[in-house]
């Protein structure tokens, strides 16, 4: 069983918390420590952002995180080294990379899949690669037992949901609002209705992200979702912290979010 499937199986219906941070933010040497800090706080799965020069789907907070990481020249190969380092002392928490397609094009899909599997990566969420264009990448990932994680949006019609369901592995990521990461226009009731509709087609667990900022919204989303993804709020915490306090502050924020959805 993959780590992602094992993770959801072990939760046995309890809700998963999926924190997101950008690899290399604020400094590459801190990332592995921050990942362990997320797990200490109660993270079930970690989404690790791969810095990209042109993060089109991200709001200002994650754009800045990407820029901080890029200032230290952190690229995909370094992100894979970080995951390998994390895996030395954590063999169970699934790690999903989230990023854009061009760094994967630059490395080559097959080469990426091989190196990612060796590092201990469990899933790949490529924001700008919908299933229509994912054939070659998905095949390369499948070869190495890495789950392609696909997005669903409020604008995705039912027929498309069914189509994406055929390709989905691990879990799907429902984008809770029309907008970029960190936006503030989340509508909880609307999300609840959408998730109910998604369940008619989707067999894998459903995670919800974009715009979840605190325990209260996390709890409300967790009523219907299987997993809650929190990104911009955590990145803001890193931004506000000093290098010395970042890990501690992340751990306690994650613990608070985890308590809210438990």
């Amino acid at each position, binding site marked *: 069983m993959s780590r992602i499937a094992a993770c959801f199986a072990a939760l046995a219906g309890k809700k998963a918390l999926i924190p997101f941070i950008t690899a290399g933010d604020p400094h590459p040497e801190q990332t592995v420590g921050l990942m362990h800090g997320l797990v200490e706080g109660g993270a079930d799965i970690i989404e690790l952002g791969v*810095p*990209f*020069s*042109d*993060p*089109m*789907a991200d*709001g200002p907070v994650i*754009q800045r995180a990407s*820029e901080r990481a*890029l200032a230290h*020249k952190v*690229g*995909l*190969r370094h992100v894979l080294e970080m995951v390998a380092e994390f895996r030395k002392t954590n063999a169970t928490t699934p790690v999903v990379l989230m990023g*854009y*397609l*061009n*760094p*994967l*094009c*630059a*490395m080559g899909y097959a080469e990426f899949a091989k190196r990612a599997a060796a590092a201990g990566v469990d899933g790949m969420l490529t*924001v*700008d*690669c*919908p299933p*229509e*264009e994912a054939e070659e990448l998905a095949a390369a990932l499948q070869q190495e037992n890495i789950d392609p994680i*696909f*997005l*669903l*949006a*409020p*604008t*995705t*019609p039912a027929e*498309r949901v069914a189509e994406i369901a055929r390709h989905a592995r691990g879990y799907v990521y429902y*984008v809770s609002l*029309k*907008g*970029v990461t960190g*936006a503030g226009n989340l509508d909880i009731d609307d999300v609840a209705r959408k998730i109910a509709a998604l369940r008619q087609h989707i067999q894998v667990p459903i995670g919800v992200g974009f715009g979840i900022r605190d325990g209260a919204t996390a709890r409300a989303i967790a009523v219907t979702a299987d997993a809650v993804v929190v990104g911009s709020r955590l990145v803001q915490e890193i931004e506000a912290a000093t290098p010395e306090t970042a890990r501690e502050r992340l751990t306690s924020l994650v613990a608070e979010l985890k308590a809210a959805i438990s």
Partner: protein
Amino acid sequence: MDRYDFPDARGHFGPYGGVYVAETLMTALAELNEEYARAKADPAFWEEFRYELKHYVGRPSPIYHAKRWSELLGGAQVYLKREDLNHTGAHKVNNTIGQALLARRMGKKRVIAETGAGQHGVASATVAARYGMECVVYMGAEDVKRQSPNVYRMKLLGATVVPVESGSKTLKDAMNEAMRDWVTNIDSTFYIIGTAAGPHPYPMLVRDFQTVIGEECKVQMPEMIGRQPDVVVACVGGGSNAIGMFYPYIGVDGVRMVGVEAGGNGIETGRHAAPLSVGKPGVLHGFRSYLMFDEDGQISDTHSVSAGLDYPGVGPEHSYLKDIGRAEYTAINDDEALKAFHDLCRYEGIIPALESSHALAWAAKVAPTMSKDQVILVNLSGRGDKDINTVASLSGLTL
């Protein structure tokens, strides 16, 4: 050449093009594709498009024989397709009219656009005023400085200009920001992309609206010289004026097609914007094409004296035409483009856009190697009024 019929139904030109966007945009792009298919089959749509091009833009644009300059060059005869004479001063308006008519069919009252040189921003602001739509233009903060006359023109036309401070603060960053606006306001907003790039169906529909350039040339050249030109040449930023010129000539044997990218300070310096000359296939802004990026896949900063060519990617159809060898692509440096700019001013009384000056410079370089009865047709994609501050400051003057 065999039948050329691209893109395919999924927007691919061979291995290029496609729809590489976040899920939220997929449905909007599918709707646009369907609406465009309906519009394409609707004679009334094209009738209105042609009416607007004739009475509002002033088409057909003439072709002009640059006799003095040709004599000076001492070889092939250089002819200019005068897109600079269009309303708003460039070819960009052909496309914005087409897309605004589509926006109106789709009931969208708000349009957004990205702009580099400001020509597409002005052309978008213009049609938004013309059709009574709200218009927001994203422009890199760097370009806002270089192209201040166009910023003010957009404001006069009622548009809101948003300077983009992220990344390299140029065209690619403006496009990122426009995409972010679009996912946020997807129900109310039509995104008018300014070049033959972006996710399907944009490269196709921008091409279709711009092919009026080449279609006119195909009629005008035989009228003027009794035959088609030996070479057609155009500058390539995202590639819209070039594909507009090339597309009708793809099936015409014996017409050489040359696209000219921005060589900046010289290809060897790395400070340029020439993805077809030295890039590799990659994915940015919703499509796969030749692209400039580093070993980690990060998109490279580009440089060109002309803001409109300062883009690390290129429309997917050009990548395909390059691979199949039907078109050739080369680069012209800032200095060469500036010389052509000044020469056209002094010998023909025409102030060309710095973008178009790259195509002119290629003609200046190659004409002397050709015989006097050969003909080069240059797409003079725009006029240079917008560039006088840039050129003045390069000459050590402030206006």
